[in-house]
C-alpha cells in the first residue's frame, strides 16, 4: 500500500514503481493477447464462416437488400460494358 510520506510524486515512492515480477506479468498479458490476436487473424482469413446461424441469415438478408438497391443496380448498369469486355476477353484469350 502507498504508505510512503507525501514527498513530491513520484520521488521517494518505491512502492509505486513496477517490480520485475510485475513487468514479467505485463509481458505475459501482452504475449497472451498476441497469440489470441494472431489466432483471430488466421480465422479471419479462413473461408469457413465465423457467424452464428442468426448472423448468417442476417448477413445474407443484408446482401439481398444491397443487391436490390437502386445504387447497386445503377452500379451494375454503369459497369456493364467493362464486365462484357472482360467476359469477351476471357473467352477469346482463354
Amino acid at each position, binding site marked *: *500500500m502507498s504508505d510512503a510520506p507525501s514527498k513530491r*510524486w513520484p520521488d521517494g515512492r518505491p512502492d509505486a514503481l*513496477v517490480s520485475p515480477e510485475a513487468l514479467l506479468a505485463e509481458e505475459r498479458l501482452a504475449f497472451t493477447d498476441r497469440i*489470441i490476436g494472431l489466432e*483471430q487473424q488466421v480465422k479471419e482469413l479462413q473461408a469457413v464462416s465465423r457467424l452464428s446461424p442468426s448472423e448468417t441469415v442476417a448477413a445474407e438478408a443484408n446482401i439481398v437488400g444491397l443487391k436490390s438497391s437502386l445504387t447497386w443496380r445503377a452500379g451494375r448498369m454503369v459497369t456493364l460494358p467493362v464486365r462484357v469486355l472482360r467476359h469477351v476477353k476471357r473467352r477469346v484469350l482463354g
Partner: protein
Amino acid sequence: MSVTDAALAARVEAWIDSAGHSGEEVTRTAQQVLGAGFDPASVFVVVDHIAHEDTAEVLGAVRELGVEVLDADARTLNDRLGASGAEFLFMVRWGKVVPNLLQHVVGFFDRFPSTSVVYGDSVTELGHPLFRPLFSPIRLRSNDYLGPVVVARRDVILGLGGFMPEARRAQVLDLVLRADQAGRTVALLPGVLATEDLTQSDFAGTSDAQRRVVEAHLEREGVEATVEELEPFIRRVRYRPAHDPKVSIVIPTRGGSAEIAGKERVLVVEAIRGIVERSTYQNLEFVVVADAETPTEVVTRLEELCGDRLRLVLWDAPFNFSAKMNRGAVAASGDYLLLLNDDVEVVTDDWIETLLGLAQQRGVGIVGAQLYFEDSTVQHAGQVYTGGVAGHAAFGWVGGRDDSIKSMLTDHEVSGVTAACALISRDLYFEVGGFTLELPGNYNDVDLNMKVRSTGRSAVFSPWARLYHFESKSRDPRILDSDLSTLQSRWSRRMQVELYSRMM
C-alpha cells in the same frame, strides 16, 4: 395442397394461445395459421379457463373454424405433445403469422440442425419493425422479448420434461429458460414471423406468472436475487453478489482538471470521492495508475480519501491506455477488476453490486454501466458493431426514451461495453490477455469485448448502474487508420451485423 406442402405440414403443429384475446382475434389468428399451410388437424387453440371470464365466445369461434381446443392445463398439453407426430411445435401467442411462416422457420431448423428453439421478428400493423435481439438469457429474465411466435422441436420439449403445471400462463418463457439451462440452442431467426398489436397491459395474470417462472429459474440456477415488477411484463432482477469478493477499481490518470457544471474539479479526486462517499459496496481497492506528471497534491488527496485501500502505480512512458490498464490489472489484488475512467461521477449508490451481481451469472464475461453526458443525455447503453466498426447504442437519447423491448429498463446482452466503466473477473482478464497493446488509444475496449465473447461468454449492459461520464459529446476521437485496420484484421467478419441492439 402440393406434395411438398403436405410433407411440410406433416412436420408441424400449431398451438394458438387464446388468453387475453377476443373470439374474433383468436379466429383471425387461427385463419392466418391455417393460411400459412398448417393441416387443420394439427392446429389447436389453447384455452385457459382461468384467463377468461367467459370462454364461450372463444370456444364458439374456434368450433366454427373446425380446429381443436386444448385446455391450458399442463397435463393436457403434455398428453397432446406425446400424441403428436409433429417434429416442430409452433407456439403462436398473439398476432397474425406471415404466409411463408412454415418454409421460413422449418427451413432455418433444417439448415441449422443444432437449433432447438427459434423465435423471430415481427412488425406492427402500421408496418414498423419490431426487431428482436440475439438470444439473450439475461434479458429474458427481465422481459419475455421472444415475440408472437416461438417454435421448438417437439423432442426437445419432451426431453426437458414437457410443460410444467407451475408455469401456467408463462409456459413459453419457462420452456426457453429451461432449454437454455439444459444447454440447448435457442436462436433468433432475423426475419418477420408475424404482425402484431402492441399491447402493454397485463392480461390473465401473465405478468405475475412470468415473475414466478423467473424466480423459480433463479432458484434452480442457485442465484440469490429478488425480482421486482417495474411495469407489466418488465422486471428488475437484483442480484445479490455471492461471497462479497474484493473489487479492484483500476483508474488511469494524469491528475488533470476540467470545468464541470461551472466548477473546476480534479477529475480523479472527484471520481474517487464520489465512490468513497456514495458506494454501498465496501470490499474495494483503488488501483490508480498515475502518470509521472500527476501533481503531488492530487496524489496526497487520493491518499487521504482512500487510506490503505489505495494502490498507486507509476506510469512513466508515453501515453498508452491499454498498457496503463494492464499495469493496473497486474497490480490489483481483487477478484474482479472495475475498469474506470477518471472523468466519471457515480449516480447510483449500488452500482458495484449491480455490476458484480451480473458478472457472477453463468455465461457472463464483462458488464458495463449506463453512462450519461453532463447534460444527462445518454452516452453509453452498450456498444453496437456493424460493418466492422463500433458505435454506442442509444447515443444522445434523452431520459425516458426507450425501444420497443424496453432496453433502457432491462439488464441485457450487448455486442460490447465501453471500458470507461466495465467490470470483469481478474482471471478472465488475464485469460484473454487484457487490453491489446496494438490499440493504444482507440478500440481497445472493442477488442477486449470481442476476446471475451470469443470465449463463449457474453457482454452485458445494465441500466441500473449509472454514472456521469464527462467526456465531451463533440470529442474528436482521432481514430487512426491503423486502429481500424488492426481491429478489423482480428474481428472484421464477426463485426458485420449488429444483432443485439437492433432498435437502438
